[in-house]
């Protein structure tokens, strides 16, 4: 089902908040024009309560199709547009006549929706001066932010490649004019780079001459949808509402691999294609930092371990001093994002969250809906573009008052989000619709089990290693009990992620090995494994469960595992639990094992 259909269904059930969230998340440049027109109607019905913004649209071409799309994308940015649609191709009169409808409307921002046909013939310098004078008049009279298109260079080049060299007409002059407009903007005037957008979109489908002839449509309709998204992002920036801080996961986001398992030296960075892709992403992030975006780390790791790659790997582009906040612990990420926002004294709605793990992204979406979440592709080579395409960090020069208002707004939001307190994890886990298959080790899984046993360092109670033949020997040993767990949720299949080995020893059931992949930390898989372990101990007639925590440099995450399940410390350093008194743990994972115990 498409995001649009889902959002419509939610709205029909009266679930407006959920409908709005689904619609915002599902809105992308891949949504067709027809669907965007429907989405726009839905957004109009869900915009009530959003802060209103008065925008005057001054078009030299038809604006009827643009306006609903602008309202839609403004909704995505979190505000509700009140629009003034100036008469067709009257933008100059409207700006020059102080009694015009434009000034009577008292806009907070005005959008000059113009195209290359509006550039008068002649030298670029004089033409740029003329536009700058129009902007100044508009800005001074209306006291509003000015947004303007630059000029999309057309596809046709009568002079062929030489067109680029012309200075009085053609492609060369338009390019020069665009460069001059960019220089003259600033101070309350923001240029929407339509020339870049048209190239990004593909010039051949950016402008559709049929609809220009039919009804003076300056852009094709899918081009128009892309434009509306960009204009809304620039508008948000002009109003001081762009995002301020980029919060980054570490493992498999900034580098390839898991530092807790692979060690700083084992991470993929320079020298491998995958590592190079991560480094390229680091360069993009570094550039964001240079231009003033705050950078923060939010990672499930030991703090010290998380900092090691920054200290030990000279090929890291990002350095510890690039980050304004560095949070590495085992708390859930929603809680950590709140503390990052509080540390930096900004609102949750100033944060953008980047994490390769879809489960973490879903958790953040659920518990911190104010935080913007980037859906990363699986391949790190696509990370920079996925982030860049969302235009979170658009920036234009803003008035002091705008900045003050924004700061006040952020402080309010920060207080509010702190008041709201800790998220309800239990209901989140339920909504993930997790299901597991758990059963004894089987031959097809031997390679994966041996890999887990030999590679897992963090969630590993004893860090005992075994080879494939040793795993097979265990499977044949009647005194050994084994459990392999597979996990799935509605976001994907995690595969085989946990293994437990126990042994009958007199009246005790002894835990030899208990490990789990860190990708599913905090889901309750260990509780499900415990329930199986307890049931097996009962079935075997054992009186107690016995486990040991063998500390290593990396396995602090399981230090509290046994006591948290009710095991008591014994004088010999082991942890013991009486089978008779033990109760199964509550889990939110549906057990879909073929022979569930």
């Amino acid at each position, binding site marked *: 089902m498409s995001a649009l259909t889902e959002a419509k269904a939610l709205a029909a059930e009266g679930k407006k908040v959920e409908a709005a969230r689904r619609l915002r998340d599902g809105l992308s440049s891949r949504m067709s*024009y*027809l669907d965007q027109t*429907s989405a726009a109607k839905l957004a109009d019905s869900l915009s009530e309560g959003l802060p209103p913004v008065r925008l005057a649209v001054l078009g030299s071409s038809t604006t*009827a*199709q643009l306006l609903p799309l602008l309202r839609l994308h403004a909704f995505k940015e979190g505000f509700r547009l009140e629009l003034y649609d100036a008469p067709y191709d009257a933008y100059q009169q409207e700006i020059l006549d102080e009694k015009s409808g434009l000034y009577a409307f008292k806009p907070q921002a005005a959008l000059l929706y113009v195209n290359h046909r509006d550039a008068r013939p002649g030298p670029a310098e004089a033409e740029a001066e003329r536009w700058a004078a129009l902007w100044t008049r508009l800005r001074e009279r209306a006291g509003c932010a000015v947004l303007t298109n630059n000029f999309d260079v057309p596809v046709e080049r009568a002079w062929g490649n030489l067109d680029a060299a012309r200075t009085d007409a053609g492609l060369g002059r338009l390019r020069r004019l665009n460069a001059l407009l960019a220089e003259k903007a600033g101070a309350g005037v923001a240029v929407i780079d339509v020339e870049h957008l048209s190239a990004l979109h593909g010039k051949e489908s950016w402008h559709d001459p*049929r*609809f220009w002839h*039919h*009804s003076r449509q300056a852009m094709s*309709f899918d081009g128009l949808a892309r434009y509306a998204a960009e204009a809304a992002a620039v508008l948000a920036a002009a109003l001081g509402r762009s995002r301020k801080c980029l919060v980054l996961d570490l493992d498999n986001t900034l580098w390839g691999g898991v530092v807790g398992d692979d060690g700083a030296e084992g991470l993929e960075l320079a020298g491998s294609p995958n590592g190079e892709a991560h480094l390229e992403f680091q360069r993009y992030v570094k550039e964001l930092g240079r231009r003033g975006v705050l950078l923060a780390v939010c990672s499930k790791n030991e703090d010290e371990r998380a900092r090691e790659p920054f200290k030990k790997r000279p090929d890291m582009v990002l350095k510890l001093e690039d980050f304004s906040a560095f949070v590495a612990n085992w708390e859930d990420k929603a809680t950590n994002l709140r503390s990052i926002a509080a540390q930096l004294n900004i609102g949750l709605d100033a944060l953008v969250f980047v994490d390769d793990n879809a489960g973490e992204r879903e958790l953040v979406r659920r518990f911190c809906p104010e935080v913007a979440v980037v859906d990363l592709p699986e391949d790190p080579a696509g990370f920079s573009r996925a982030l860049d395409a969302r235009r979170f960090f658009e920036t234009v020069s803003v008035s002091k008052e705008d900045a003050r208002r924004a700061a006040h707004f952020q402080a309010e939001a920060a207080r509010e989000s702190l008041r709201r307190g800790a998220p309800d994890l239990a209901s989140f886990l339920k909504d993930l619709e997790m299901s597991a298959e758990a059963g004894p080790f089987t031959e097809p899984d031997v390679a994966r089990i041996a890999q887990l046993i030999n590679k897992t360092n963090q969630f590993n109670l004893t860090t005992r290693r075994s080879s494939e033949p040793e795993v097979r020997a265990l499977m044949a040993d009647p005194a050994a009990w084994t459990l392999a767990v597979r996990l799935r949720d509605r976001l994907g299949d995690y595969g085989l992620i946990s293994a437990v080995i126990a042994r009958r020893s007199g009246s005790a059931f002894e835990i030899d090995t208990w490990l789990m992949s860190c990708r599913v930390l905090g889901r309750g898989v260990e509780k499900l494994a415990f329930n199986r372990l307890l049931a097996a101990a009962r079935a075997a007639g054992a009186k107690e469960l016995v486990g040991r925590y063998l500390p290593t440099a990396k396995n602090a995450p399981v230090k509290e595992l046994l006591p948290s399940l009710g095991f008591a410390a014994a004088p010999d350093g082991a942890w013991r639990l009486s089978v008779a008194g033990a109760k199964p743990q509550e889990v939110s994972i549906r057990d879909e094992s073929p022979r569930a115990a």
Partner: protein
Amino acid sequence: MNPQELHDRLQEIFRQVFDSETLMIRDETTAAEIEGWDSLAQINLVVGAEERFGVRFQTAEIRSLKNVGEFKRLIAGKLAAS
């Protein structure tokens, strides 16, 4: 594509453009009969048909639609030619 399938898919586009789950179209349906069938809706119908049927209208065809039947014949002709 058989005529019924074409009809159903076109009706789906009409329902989306006019935001009505129950709208029924007939060959004789004209713009005057459907509330909101103005020039903006007309463009959305054409663009919607191009997106959903994968056809392309010529400049002159964009404004020459008398009723639904003519719209269907135009689409069917383009589908047959492709």
